[in-house]
């Protein structure tokens, strides 16, 4: 899905706050409350699996995504999933927030839609799956990534679409997020690490000999690239 979450390579050049650490003990209390809430949502099945949760974060209001911080994003996802599960309504949340002093002008991150049917829980232990089918690509092979954006959850960033890279590792089968987030089952796929020359992805970027960007990509994102230079 094209969205604000897909940050790789976006222009803007904001400086990085290199001094910010983890500071867990000193953060505002609401961060801990959100953290605990998300854990409870996983335990109860409202957050059916990690892929559905990640997609809920991706769907929140874009301005909130950029401004509300990490736990603000989690809060938006939590509200989204709770409303989609029918546990609570947006009206109830708004009413309680107003009781606590919120204003109607405040920006809300949650963007509840329709909860997918057929969501299955993730295996708490591992997302790895052994596949009967052989991997399609071999180490050293050149591949091209998919060109078009998908409407739903995917783990192919926009910056790496329609790009040619080299297979440098194969990791057998893994639960496929594109299916798992939308209630279409695990649908495990072969996973590869693909190395791209950074100069091919961003021709104008700072030159560096042999600079690469490596991504872990699922087989459905790839097709053969027969005319390797």
């Amino acid at each position, binding site marked *: 899905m094209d969205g604000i979450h897909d940050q790789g390579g976006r222009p803007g050049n904001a400086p*990085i*706050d290199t001094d910010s650490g983890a500071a867990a003990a000193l953060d505002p209390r609401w961060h801990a409350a959100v953290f605990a809430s998300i854990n409870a949502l996983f335990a109860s099945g409202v957050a059916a699996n990690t892929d559905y949760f990640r997609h809920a974060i991706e769907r929140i209001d874009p301005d909130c995504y950029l401004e509300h911080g990490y736990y603000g994003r989690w809060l938006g996802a939590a509200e989204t999933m709770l409303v989609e599960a029918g546990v609570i309504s947006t009206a109830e949340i708004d009413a309680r927030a107003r009781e606590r002093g919120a204003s109607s002008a405040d920006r809300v991150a949650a963007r509840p839609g329709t909860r997918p049917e057929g969501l299955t829980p993730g295996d708490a232990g591992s997302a790895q799956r052994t596949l009967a089918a052989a991997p399609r690509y071999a180490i050293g092979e050149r591949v091209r990534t998919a060109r078009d954006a998908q409407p739903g959850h995917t783990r192919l960033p926009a910056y790496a679409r329609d790009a040619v890279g080299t297979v440098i590792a194969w990791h057998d089968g893994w639960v496929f997020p594109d299916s798992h987030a939308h209630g279409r089952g695990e649908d495990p796929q072969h996973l590869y690490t693909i190395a791209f020359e950074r100069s091919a992805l961003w021709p104008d970027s700072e030159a560096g000999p042999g600079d690469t960007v490596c991504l872990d990509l699922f087989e459905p994102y790839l097709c053969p690239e027969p005319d390797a230079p």
Partner: protein
Amino acid sequence: MTHDPDQEQDQQDDHAAEPAIRAEALESLLIEKGILDPAAVDEVIERYNERVGPMNGAQLVARAWVDEDFRALLLRDGTEAVNRFEFRGGQVDKLVVVENTPAVHNVVVCTLCSCYPWAVLGLPPKWYKDPAYRSRVVREPRAVLREFGTRLDDDVSVRVWDSSAEIRYMVLPERPPAWADLSEEQLASRVTRDSMIGVEVLA
């Protein structure tokens, strides 16, 4: 009995505030009586925020530096290497450790969200999760590294690992020559979280 949300909220606030008041009372008295150094509690908290998590990764690095067979295992099968250590809370699905060399410098990111090797590095720093790092490090890694005070030679290649699936990445930094005579325990205490993410070079 009518439900009074304001009164209920005040009571909840009082209950919630009581433990905080007690902690504050205790700390203030211990400091006044000279039993506790005012900076001591901050120092402990910072130590636990920064060290307990990254110490797992630091132990892997230190062991790899002193034991060639372990180094080979760590680079070949990071998951198995972690399992040998039996870290607390150190469950990994799959860990890949990438080594820095004089020719190659590695750095880790998750551009799509904030995937991070929790099991070996603990909680991620705030900057790792923020859009600025996620957007820029894949496209201009050298500029990003400079903001962390890290300068690479022109002939070093930079390899950025974008954690787009469930595999988690950690950098095996180069061992500084000045640390040649340190023990494994001393080495582990000097390896930093930022060097294992790849934004810092140890010296």
